[in-house]
């Protein structure tokens, strides 16, 4: 396991996440893709902390922060998604165009 492998993995995860975000019609799918991107970033943090930092603990703190924040974000996003589902009975983002200018 080298730093290059870890960075490649995080890049792949990020690319999968972005691809999913752009192609999924379902809001839940988009939410999952966002989580994948975040985890890609987390791996990056952890890898650099492990291989490069003088004090690995300092780097390891960031993924913990990100996880805490994304947990909160997921909670909020899920609440929005649920209420949206109750109103519309579907989660297809192509049909959600109320905000167009």
């Amino acid at each position, binding site marked *: 396991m080298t730093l290059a492998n870890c960075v490649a993995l995080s890049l792949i995860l990020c690319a999968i996440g*972005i691809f999913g*975000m*752009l192609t999924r019609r379902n809001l839940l799918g*988009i939410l999952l893709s966002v989580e994948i991107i975040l985890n890609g970033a987390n791996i990056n943090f952890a890898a650099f902390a492990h291989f490069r930092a003088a004090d690995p603990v300092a780097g390891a703190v960031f993924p913990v922060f990100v996880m805490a924040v994304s947990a909160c974000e997921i909670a909020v996003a899920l609440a929005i998604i649920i209420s949206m589902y109750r109103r519309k009975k579907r989660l297809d*983002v*192509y049909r*959600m*165009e*109320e*905000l*167009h*200018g």
Partner: protein
Amino acid sequence: MADFILFNSYLILLFPLFSFAIIGLGHINSDNKFVAKFAIAMSSLSLGYALLTTLAYLSQPKHTLLAYDAAWLNFAPGLTANLGMYLDPISVMMLVVVTVISLLVNIYSVGYMKGDRSFNRFFALLALFSFSMLGLVTSGNILQMFVFWELVGVSSYSLIGFWYEKPSAVAASKKAFIVTRFADAFFLLGILLVSFYSQTFSFQELNSPSTALLLKDAGVLTLGTLLIFAGGWGKSAMFPLHVWLPDAMEGPTPVSSIIHSATMVVAGVYLTARMFPLFAASETTLFVIQCIGAFTALFAAVIAITQMDIKRILAFSTLSQLGYMIFSLGAAKVCADGGGHHGADVNPLGFSAAMYHVFTHAFFKCMLFLGAGAVIHAVHSNDILKMGGLKQLMPKTYWSLLAACLAIAGVFPLSGFWSKDAILLAALQSGHTVTFLVGLITGGLTAFYMFRFFFLIFHGEARSHLHHVHEDPWMTWPIVALTVPTIFAGLLEHSFVAQVLPPHLGETGHFAHPAWLPWLATLVAMTGIGCAWLLYGEGKTEKAAALQKAFGPVHTVVQNKFYVDEVYLFITHKIIFNCVAAPIKWFDRNVVDGTMNLCGWLLQVGGKGVRLVQNGELHLYLGATVVGLIVLLFLGK
């Protein structure tokens, strides 16, 4: 005690201001009787305090004093405008004149405005005018004077247009405002110019010889003083800015009486007198003042002969008398080759004569207007051809107006005789023979048109059907009261000549007083009255009509006021509107507005384009975010 009274002399101004605020803000719809009582009470208090101030002023030795002085505007270190009460002989005199006339006109207006639905508004505005005028005469510096100068302009405007349902009144008020504002623009320029070089606004410093020297060295003395005089030119309605005054007669007659004859229109004379030492430093300025005054005096007197409207006759008479005052001020400088003087080149008689004429003229002209108002009230017409035979019906008005007409004609021993005599003497001593002759001839014309006016109104048979003509006591008593100063103000001549002098004039020479002058002036006045008696003495107009026919076109030209109004209309409508205003309007509408509209249109079109992107599709937004992020990442390198 005297100090205390003088220090609080600003109360003279505060009474009318208070009256304006209370009536204008709180009682505009109240009972008329209460408002009338309140207004009269306030102007009586103002008069009482003005008299107290006069006594206190006379009991102390100083010639000029700033009774009250407080910092007002701090422009720059060394350039401060103060608020002050400036007391010197002319301002004290004007305080008395304005408060006396204000009180009498207030009383008169109770009768004149009875039943008018804007009765209360009238008294509020009258109080505002009194306040502004009193402020103008007591201003300690030129900037403060300018503020009050504009305030009297505003009150004059709103009182000329008092009956705003009448289109002619509205037009007249606009005309008065625009013409005087036009002149005031120059006044302001003059203030800026003079204060820029002299670094002061205060009259005391402006009038000092050092300021005159300073301005002369900077080369702006003549220009600055002429610009300042331009303000007075408009306010005192000198030719060719006189056109607003005859039209201002559209206002209620008490307004014409107080504002457009007795007080406001002498503001220009007052300004000239106030800054006289500075003006006198420039010979050109004084010469211009003298010429314009003499010309207006004669010009207006000639027009007055042919007018048929009772108030317009008086308006032109006012113009003519203002001309007298102005040229008298201009004549205070002795020209190089004239006069029997020894070394001195300034003759203070011109100054004191002008101020004395302001004083006497205020009373008899105010009375003439009040009398004319009473006649208009009785006959319901302004046309003197529809009057006649009012002698028996209005005896008190008849006898009072007789005194006023004799006074303005300059008949011994009424007040007008003394002041006119002093003015003619000043003109003679100054060595300007033409001005003296103009003054003499104008005196004859004055006597003629005043008695034409008088005979046509009161003598002979009534020329129209008159019913229930009576003299309203509210209106009659102020007229009768004014006969006292009209007849007896002549007694004050010596104190005026001795006391009312401009400061800082230094050595003045000794001037001869020819004994033939009063006789000549009286002879000319008597000739004028005699001619009027011959033509109109029986209240008949046939002889005059024949004479009028003989003169034909000359009469038409004069009756149409030498077509000055038409010239103005031609210049403004045809030349300025078409050649200046129209291209500017085109430029504004097309170029300026066009540029602005183009900017707006571009933004609108751009906005419409950008709006298409915002289509509400989440994918597009996300994609744009990602692309943007990538672009930023690469740009970052």
